[in-house]
């Protein structure tokens, strides 16, 4: 634009333009010193300082992924010397490199990698500091000097979700892209290839994402994030790209209009299939985000027998509470890398008995000794209660109690599949019990998910040494789990959660109706006495 004007000889506007450009250069230096420009020495130095302060204990002083926390987290912190970034919006380069753009890396730093120990830094660092970090961590890998990121991924031809699109997506998921070979037919990350054993580029065992839990998607669960992962794959992991290199690149090169059209039609179909798959993946979500923990689990009161099977329709009536489970990292030996994310708990009672239904995802149905490389144990779950009646605030220590406040564990394992009563006085005393203690249970493993029902009478004869369930009171309970193929067993190596309250709904009482009448009566008495007094004194 400015050149045109100069040739027309309008010196005034030329001058104005020069000044404009000068001002623009000056401003851009001020405002955005390093946006996609070469970083200055000062930026790199600032980046290094922040890196040493905030990142080196995980990613290593040398950027090689070896820091203080490396041994106690899973997945492992990234080795930046590899130049591999999982999440990127750029196609393969001409040299065949998968390079993330600065904005991709900045986003991972800003938002963190969900479901891993890599936190989001936006609450701590400014956007400018994050840009400086991006430049600094890129210096660990030569590939960023040798090559520049490829063309941007196009998100065109988006198809909104609909039952038809989801059905089409399922078909593509299972027959075109064959995602189920890794992610499983219900998306719980338990496909054949996953079970056979996948490794990432650094030789660590890796599991395909459980697609039903979007809050664990490392790179975010937005529609475009899923689209991006399918199209470009996840670098450093076995998750392959389905649209890389850019399918349209060829169309740009050819001069033959027919060929061009053909390529474009194919590329469009690929994009549409990808969007259908995105819609299908979203339809697999158990919850759109990690549910808030509710303080009380309400056991609804029902008439007649309680369901014994976890798939009984009666469970649809019961409220579902979700609780996150985390590794036991309080007592040695600690469990730093749990595989279980959370458990859903439901409860019903009928005045005589109480039944619990526990549902959690586990990719593997473990049996002792099934894996030669590492010790495997049975998969198990337990509900925990106080063995003694409680008064006041007091409760047993939430990790299996202690000598003065023991706990009852209703322990269920997949083999043999019968719940037993296990009483503990601290994690060190954990020893699977040998009597049912009145527990009746039924459980099953189904395509990457356990569903278990355990029930018992509300009251037992050992009222002082076994948990009793008074109706209408708040009873502390918690859940603990063992994923056998993750090496979890015993009192310490397990997933845990805090105490929460169980509340057995009282009989639908007539009390509210009486109280309604009492309230009306109260109102009337107050009014008429006021009327009487006023009339008498002033009337």
């Amino acid at each position, binding site marked *: 634009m400015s050149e045109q004007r100069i040739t027309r000889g309008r010196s005034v506007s030329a001058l104005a333009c020069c000044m404009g450009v000068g001002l623009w250069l000056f401003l851009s230096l001020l405002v955005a010193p390093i946006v996609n420009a070469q970083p200055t020495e000062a930026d790199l130095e600032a980046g290094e300082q922040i890196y040493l302060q905030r990142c080196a*204990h995980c990613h290593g002083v040398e950027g090689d992924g070896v820091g203080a926390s490396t041994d106690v987290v899973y997945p492992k912190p990234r080795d930046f010397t590899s130049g591999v970034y999982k999440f990127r919006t750029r196609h393969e380069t001409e040299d065949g490199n998968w390079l993330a753009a600065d904005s991709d890396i900045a986003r991972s730093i800003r938002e963190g990698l969900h479901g891993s120990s890599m936190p989001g830094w936006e609450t*701590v660092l400014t956007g400018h500091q994050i840009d400086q970090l991006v430049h600094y961590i890129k210096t660990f890998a030569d590939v960023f000097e040798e090559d520049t990121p490829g063309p941007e991924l196009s998100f065109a031809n988006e198809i909104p979700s609909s039952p038809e699109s989801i059905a089409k997506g399922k078909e593509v998921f299972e027959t075109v892209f064959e995602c189920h070979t890794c992610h499983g037919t219900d998306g719980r990350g338990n496909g054949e290839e996953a079970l056979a054993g996948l490794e990432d580029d650094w030789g660590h065992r890796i599991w395909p994402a459980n697609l039903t839990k979007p809050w664990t998607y490392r790179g975010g669960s937005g529609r475009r994030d899923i689209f991006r992962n399918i199209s470009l794959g996840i670098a450093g992991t076995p998750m392959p790209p389905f649209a890389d290199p850019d399918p349209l690149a060829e169309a740009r090169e050819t001069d033959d209009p027919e060929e061009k059209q053909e390529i474009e039609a194919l590329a469009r179909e690929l994009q549409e299939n990808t969007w259908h798959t995105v819609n299908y993946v979203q339809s697999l979500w158990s919850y759109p985000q990690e549910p808030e923990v509710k*303080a009380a689990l*309400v056991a609804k009161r029902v008439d007649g027998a309680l369901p014994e099977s976890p798939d009984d329709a009666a469970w649809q009536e019961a409220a579902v509470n979700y609780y996150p489970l985390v590794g036991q990292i309080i007592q040695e030996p600690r469990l730093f890398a749990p595989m279980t994310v959370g458990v859903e708990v439901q409860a019903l009672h009928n005045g005589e008995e109480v039944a619990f239904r526990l549902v959690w995802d586990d990719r593997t149905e473990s049996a002792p000794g099934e894996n030669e490389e590492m010790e495997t144990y049975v998969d198990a779950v337990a509900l925990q209660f106080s063995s003694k009646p409680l008064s006041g*605030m*007091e409760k047993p220590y*939430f990790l299996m109690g202690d000598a003065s406040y023991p706990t009852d564990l209703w322990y269920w394992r997949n083999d043999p599949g019968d719940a037993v009563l296990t009483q503990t006085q601290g994690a060190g005393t954990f020893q699977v019990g040998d009597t049912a203690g009145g527990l009746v249970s039924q459980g099953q493993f189904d395509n990457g998910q356990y569903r278990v029902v355990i029930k018992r009478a509300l009251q037992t004869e050992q009222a002082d040494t076994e948990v009793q369930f008074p109706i209408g009171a708040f009873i502390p309970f918690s859940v603990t789990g063992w994923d056998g193929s993750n090496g979890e067993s015993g009192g310490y190596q397990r997933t845990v959660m*805090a105490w929460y309250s169980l509340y057995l709904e009282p009989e639908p009482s007539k009390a509210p109706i009486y109280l309604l009448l009492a309230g009306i009566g109260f109102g009337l008495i107050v*009014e008429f006495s006021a009327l009487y007094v006023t009339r008498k004194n002033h009337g």
Partner: protein
Amino acid sequence: MRRGLPIHLKCLLILIAAIFVFSVVVPFVSAPIPGQLYGWYVITTLCVIFLYVSSSEASWEEFITPVRNLLLARTALMKPLRIVVFIVVPLLCGWYFSTWAAGGATPPGGLRVIHPTPPSSVNVQGKRFVLQDISVSPIREDEAHLAEHIEKGRVVYYENCFFCHGDALQGKGHFAKGFNPPPADFQDTGTIAQLSESYLFWRIAKGGPGLPGESTPWDSAMPIWEDFLTEDEIWQVIAYLYEITGHEPRVMDHGEGDGGH
């Protein structure tokens, strides 16, 4: 005689202000008020308003006259209004009584003391520490090596604490969501900024189970660190916490406990 706002408006404003404080200001500065307690606060406020209204003959008259007029239906308009009020008020009472009874499943909000009074002395790994006698941490006396100690404290933190207390020291580690009470937020001015280094020494060495009963030791996930760390490592991580958050340890010798909330 009639100065300022009509008395009914005043009462209403006092009530609204009180409710605003209870449900917005208090949760903002500390924690939401548990349900039952909230009810008591509102009742107390109503009592105060009543006292205020009946404090002088004049204000009482001003307050009661419209009510009296209504009861006696002194104007034509008042008659139907009286009927409406006589029906609505009992129904409201009935509704309130019955919903209050069906209150249902909100567990009682236990009042946990966050910062209890520490014991006068603790035994850590067989050594006795009289907390009042420790006005500054021993490693601060070794000034020449303080930077080194802090650096070691950083390693201790990232090998042991960040799962719960988080990378950013805000109590948002990747395991934090499994625990209740949640891990302490060290950036917040309500935690280590209010405490002395000897208090932290006690808390870190003895963990959750070392708390007194009013602080619900059975709920706290804070590990007993004397089982994992040396005495020096505990002082080092304390120095690191203050260094990285920029808070100053409180220097004091008596009566640390502030009762919490």
